[in-house]
């Protein structure tokens, strides 16, 4: 771990927030996932990498409840759960920020942060919204995450790409979410904006959230990730400590040039990489 956590040394006491084992998913003739495992602990960033078609998106959709796996088990804080609909995963505290952000351009920042869960004024008739409470909490959350936007009352349409991404990420922590899935959060951003979003991801970790980052960009992965899970052709290759695994090793795992933890020969003889799964 790049950030040793006193709690974490006590292996017995620590349970992952989210733990997947033996996940398989088949679409017609395509075996999208085969016996995949994945876990994320509180206050850590796990990157999910792999070439196109490796199964990253399918795995994310399994976690967010869009696809139901054909086999395998999902544990939430050590407890076995079934995720049948997106609502199941939302109810547990798993938030997904998709690449398209799913923001309403015509609504202001407060409106987007509270989309679908607007606060009603206590005792107010017919669901009259409590704009003051929503704005206060919105400002609070944005300040806590150091998100820089000119005003929480301007429409999303007039924000930059990085600011929009930040608002989308901030929305994912509005509820009592504990795991945030970020699908290519920096794909369309410039350098400064990418930096902003990466800083935001680090702050999510500081807040104790488990962050799952899907990215093609190794620089970003290494900038924030504690562990890196590699998928290839729908199979789990291995999970590696970002601090001691080089970019070349990662590419070798992704392309299959070097067998990973999950594949023979066993990693003890494979020399490369430091598997940290099952910690």
């Amino acid at each position, binding site marked *: 771990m790049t950030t040793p956590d006193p709690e974490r040394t006590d292996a017995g006491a620590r349970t992952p927030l989210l733990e997947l084992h033996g996940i398989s998913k088949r679409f017609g003739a395509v075996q999208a996932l085969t016996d995949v495992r994945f876990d994320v602990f509180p206050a850590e960033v796990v990157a999910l990498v792999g070439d196109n078609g490796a199964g990253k998106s399918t795995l994310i959709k399994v976690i967010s409840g869009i696809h139901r796996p054909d086999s395998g088990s999902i544990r939430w804080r050590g407890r076995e759960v079934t995720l049948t609909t997106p609502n199941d995963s939302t109810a547990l505290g798993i938030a997904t920020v998709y690449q398209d952000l799913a*923001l309403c351009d*015509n609504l202001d920042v407060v409106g987007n942060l509270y*989309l679908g869960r607007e606060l009603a004024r206590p005792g107010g008739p017919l669901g009259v919204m409590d704009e*003051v409470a929503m704005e206060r909490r919105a400002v609070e959350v944005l300040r806590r995450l150091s998100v820089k936007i000119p005003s929480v*009352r301007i429409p999303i349409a007039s924000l930059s790409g990085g600011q929009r991404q930040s608002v989308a990420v901030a929305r994912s922590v509005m509820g009592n979410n504990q795991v945030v899935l970020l699908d290519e959060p920096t794909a369309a951003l410039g350098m400064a904006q990418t930096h902003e979003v990466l800083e935001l991801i680090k702050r999510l970790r500081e807040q104790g959230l488990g962050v799952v980052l899907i990215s093609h960009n190794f620089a970003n992965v290494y900038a924030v990730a504690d562990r890196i899970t590699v998928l290839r052709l729908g199979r789990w290759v291995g999970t590696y400590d970002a601090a001691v695994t080089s970019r070349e090793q990662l590419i070798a795992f992704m392309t299959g040039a070097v067998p990973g933890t999950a594949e023979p020969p066993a990693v003890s003889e494979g020399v490369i990489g430091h598997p940290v799964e099952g910690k």
Partner: protein
Amino acid sequence: MSSTLEHDPRVIAERSGLGGVLAEYRRRLRQGDIGPLPVLVGLVVIWTIFQIAADGRFITPFNLVNLTLQMAAGGMISVGLVLVLLLGEIDLSAGVVSGLCAAIMAVLNINVGLPGPVAVGLALLAGAAVGTLQGAWSTGFGIPSFVVTLAGLIAWQGAMLQVLGRTGTINLGDPFIISLAGRFLSGPAAYVCLALFVAYVAIGPVVTQRRRAAGGLTVPPLAFLVIRAILVSAFATAAVVALDADRGISSGLLFLIVAVIVVDFVLRRVRLGRMIYAIGGNAEAARRAGIPVQRVRILVFTLASTFAALGGILGASRGYAVNQSAGQGPVLLNAIAAAVIGGVSLFGGRGTVWGALLGTIVIQSISNGMDLLSLSSSIKFMITGGVLITTVTIDAVLRRSRSTGAR
């Protein structure tokens, strides 16, 4: 809020105080976020032209009262259409539904002999049922609302002819129905209405400001609120004085203003309103956020057809009759034009119901003025079309400058 958030150096700081409000307004104008200003300017131009062309017969208490009478029916249909347009949908059947419901009311009252209020209530229910059916059909089968309501436009027209039967025209005499659009509030009653309106316009924002201040949020300067309230109140007072110099405030106008205030409140302050804007802005995002998109759509179509029914009833009340031409062509087109002139986007998510009221005033002023000048309907149609395309073009050009000339 900028003061409470860390500052991005690229962001121009919002100045506080009245100067800040003015600076912010100028910035928005430059960016093409123009609000109701062009429509107001256009209205002044239109009124000036007609006042000169009609030798001073346009801006008179008598004619202004006529204008308010003409506005009520179409304005009510526009209010309903705004809701549908905000979703990014369209209701092409609104015009004929207004005619159908007026016909239902007339037949129930005159031919069947039901009391006026019952006939009106059943006609409104019929409107709601039509809207629910169209909304459910469109969302349930995934057919664009354009197609479903186009079918409705044709089918409900047939239904109206069927309801009216062979006579074709039904004259109304029921005192309740006649009084819906045709009663006047004058003298003290008119000024009580004015006082209520001014109180709503002036006190509402101040209460909001207090609540924000109590919650530790930034507030617009009081001077700004006072100036805005004074301006709006001055216009309202001038209007009431002018109307009261003739017959007074017509009940139709009163219904329309109340409808606008209620719908505006729902859109801005109630969760349902936020959902409507969200669906119009990004339906997929709204769905993922857990908003019941289909239910909201069906509800909005129901409301729109109910407002259309109300418009048709007001129109019949004012004309003392329902005939086969009720709710035909121009009724729908004028209602859509009014909303669009008032800044409601056809692509959903943008616009206000106050804008639609302004648009209604524009459309009806043109119609009224050209009647004063005794222009033929051929000329009227061409000019109305010209005004519509001019307004939308101005909006489109300014919008383009907004998207390119952003911060």
